């Protein structure tokens, strides 16, 4: 009975409670979290499209939520999640092909994903401001 001692269960040493966050684990969980956020975004997108298809009142209602300050913050977060998941996905594809496994490459590509996500999000929002006027 490897898990028991004198009838009690042996304690489990702490895992996520004490393990140091490193670029490796942080970017990995960020990829998963951004993926979940994007799944929710897909639902919101469908709601928005349905509102547009339904009619002017429904569309105005949904637009009211999106253009509010809290909606804009949410939209900003979603675009950041989109670009982070996209760049992270490319990093995963490169790994699946077998490249980029030295620690140096792992860290360089990791920081590149963070930088690219921020840069692309800012670019997208600045461009949208230009388009919108």
């Amino acid at each position, binding site marked *: 009975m490897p898990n028991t001692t004198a009838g009690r269960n042996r304690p489990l040493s702490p895992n996520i409670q004490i393990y140091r966050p490193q670029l490796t684990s942080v970017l990995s969980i960020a990829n998963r979290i951004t993926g979940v956020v994007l799944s929710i975004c897909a639902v919101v997108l469908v709601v928005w499209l349905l509102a547009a298809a339904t009619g002017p009142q429904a569309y105005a209602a949904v637009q009211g939520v999106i253009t509010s300050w809290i909606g804009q913050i949410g939209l900003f977060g979603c675009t950041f999640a989109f670009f982070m998941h996209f760049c992270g996905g490319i990093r995963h594809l490169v790994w699946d092909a077998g490249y980029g*496994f030295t620690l140096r490459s792992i860290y360089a590509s990791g920081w590149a994903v963070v930088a690219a996500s921020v840069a692309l999000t800012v670019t997208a929002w600045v461009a949208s401001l230009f388009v919108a006027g």
Partner: protein
Amino acid sequence: MIIESSDQMPRATLLKRFPVPRNFGVAPESRISRGKTWSAPAGAKCVKSFDIYRYDPDSGKNPRLDTFEVDLDDCGPMVLDALIWIKSKVDSTLTFRRSCREGVCGSCAMNIDGTNWLACTRFISDLDTPATIYPLTNMRIIKDLVPDLTHLFAQYAMIEPWLQSKTPEPEKERLQSPEERSKLDGKYECILCFCCTSGCPSHWWNGDRFLGPAALLQAGRWLADTRDEAIGERLDILEDPFRLYRCHTILNCTRTCPKGLNPGKAIADIKKMMIERRS
């Protein structure tokens, strides 16, 4: 910022632990309470505090975190030296595994300042203040810093770490060219300390069925060995949604290996072999 080898410490740390509650998801018998503080001897000038996980199976109490103040002038440079100093001068009940004291046996693997490493190759001067020493992550604890490695060794045995060949034994050695032998480099040096496996979040959540980086690195070692003739059977063992494929390329393993090995790359190569044999 860019880590080039696993023994490099980060220059700055944003977070020392994930922003979860201290006892997040912890079963009642594993909750850690505050323990005793053992002060440095009088007259000690160079003193460092160590917070060390303690568990006494005979006491019936929960694990606790004791604080030891170590006189660094009286103690060797490595974390293992500090543990031995504590055991010999302060509290002789402190229990930990150790053997070679030079980083080749894998006995003293533990979680030091949040990352898994060998106590005998981690310099005290590289540690935080106070330094925190926990046992290997996510393991059942027998006593203090001694984890139960039974299921990890069972997972290692599952990948059949021995030479399998159908051709009859040659009269002398099974010959290998230097190029063939070089395929084992970066894999055979594993000392089975299990720092990687116990640092893998996927193994934390699915450790009962996911084999973990240590066992899979050795699976890769036997798959790469040109003298072995059981590649098909070895890959058959891994045809399972959990044994190999719970690896999501988190790469904590490569980051934490105290021998500088790359289990993440070996696992990616195994995944490629699994696909290539289908085509």
